[in-house]
């Protein structure tokens, strides 16, 4: 599947799950932003951290 196809498939499935309607004329821009976010996330995921690394959002009781 093409990169655009993967992004569109993900967008369609999750938007439906969340109850968000994506008008056809918005799709190009939404896909662009999703692609940028995917690339950003890929950069983060490539950084290896140990399993016990604490997220910054750690909760204090």
């Amino acid at each position: 599947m093409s990169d655009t196809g993967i992004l569109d498939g993900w967008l369609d499935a999750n938007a439906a799950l969340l109850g968000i309607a994506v008008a056809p004329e918005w799709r190009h821009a939404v896909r662009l932003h999703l692609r940028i976010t995917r690339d950003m996330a890929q950069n983060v995921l490539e950084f290896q951290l140990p399993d016990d690394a604490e997220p910054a959002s750690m909760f204090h009781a």
Partner: protein
Amino acid sequence: MSDLAWASAKTTAAAVAGGEVSATTVIEQTLARIAQRNPVLNAFTAITVERARSRAAAIDAARAAGRAIGPLAGVPFAVKNLIDIAGLPTLAGSKINRGHPPATNDATLVSRLEAAGAVLVGTLNMGEYAYDFTGENSHDGPSRNPHDTARMTGGSSGGSGGAVAGGMVPIALGSDTNGSIRVPSSFCGIFGLKPTYGRLSRAGSFPFVSSLDHLGPFARGATDLALAYDAMVGPDSLDPVCTVRDTEPIGAGLAAGITGLRIARAGGYFRSGAGVEALAALDSVATALRATREIELPEAARARAAAYVITTSEGAALHLDRLRNQPLDFDPDVRDRLIAGAVVPAAWVVAAQKFRRWYRDAVLRLFDEVDAILAPATPCVAPPIGQKSFVLNGQEVPLRPNIGIYTQPVSFIGLPVVAVPVPQPGGMPIAVQVIAAPWREDVALRIAYDLETRGIVRSPQPAE
């Protein structure tokens, strides 16, 4: 005193305290100035005329009665319209929030500035829901840069930048999640303080990304930033993030000098992509401070990426119901980014938060060796309003997500920053970030003050 439009807050407060001018006169001059300039600059979305007049009259009465009137007595200020003002709906730059009931109380920072004698004169334009670096707004129109009204103010605190740089108020408040104080400071040529995350209360402000949101002041000089900061700092049980640390006033030590401070400039990531103006400004400041050492913030590009992922995901989660039910009421540029953020997988966000802790620990180790780090605030001067893309590292990229490339890796871990403006002869201003260790706003402000007193940085007065 004559026209106070370009007077500092300190000068105005001293004049009011000394009886050279009444607070009422200051406020009437301010309201007249706003009426003259705001139709051009579009910085204000509401002007609190009656409240301001009433407050000014109360200050004059207090002074006449010999009561204390505060260190900011009679100083006009305005706030980004995501900050609560009793009696007004808190717009956060949106059309949707116009249907909300008016705020019942002022935000904590507004109350504290007024307790110090300052006088609120209005609320300010901003990018919708603060998801913006441009200062554009499809509902209220764009904030316009006082140095060239065809150019952006930067955002999202665009009205705050325009109001201060345009001589309508000496102090404004804004918010900064990824750069929304520092970017308008850079584009408009003014000073901005993004404090340490958790330093200033956010109670009574409309959120964007809770784990990244800060509030802070803009001014045309370091002294006024310190005055505003000192009036606002302190614990606040209404903001669970607000620190209970003891605080010392910064203003008193502002002129202590910078002898002994170890100052470096950021290299690597912070050099790549910077335009000639950004690099020239950084060189100018670094040379003046004899900051010859270059230091690398480890994995800064990845930090920016992680901030991006957290921002889009947390921001979208905040607006999920509105995206479902009122998508046509959003600014389209904001809506499309938020929809993309709504479908981000949770694993990406958790990875970004784990990386955030690693990055914080790595950067904090740098502060064993230096006291402050200099970096560009923006890669370029203010682009024309409406521009959608620009060239970064030789590639054409969307403008809106990329203006904050140098601010995001810094606010990502909550470091305090003062943006200092560097005038460009014959051109638009641009700012440099003075970054300090957590809770050391005093260090960043002392450096800003030193640079200002030596004429290296200043807020240029625009031609009108």
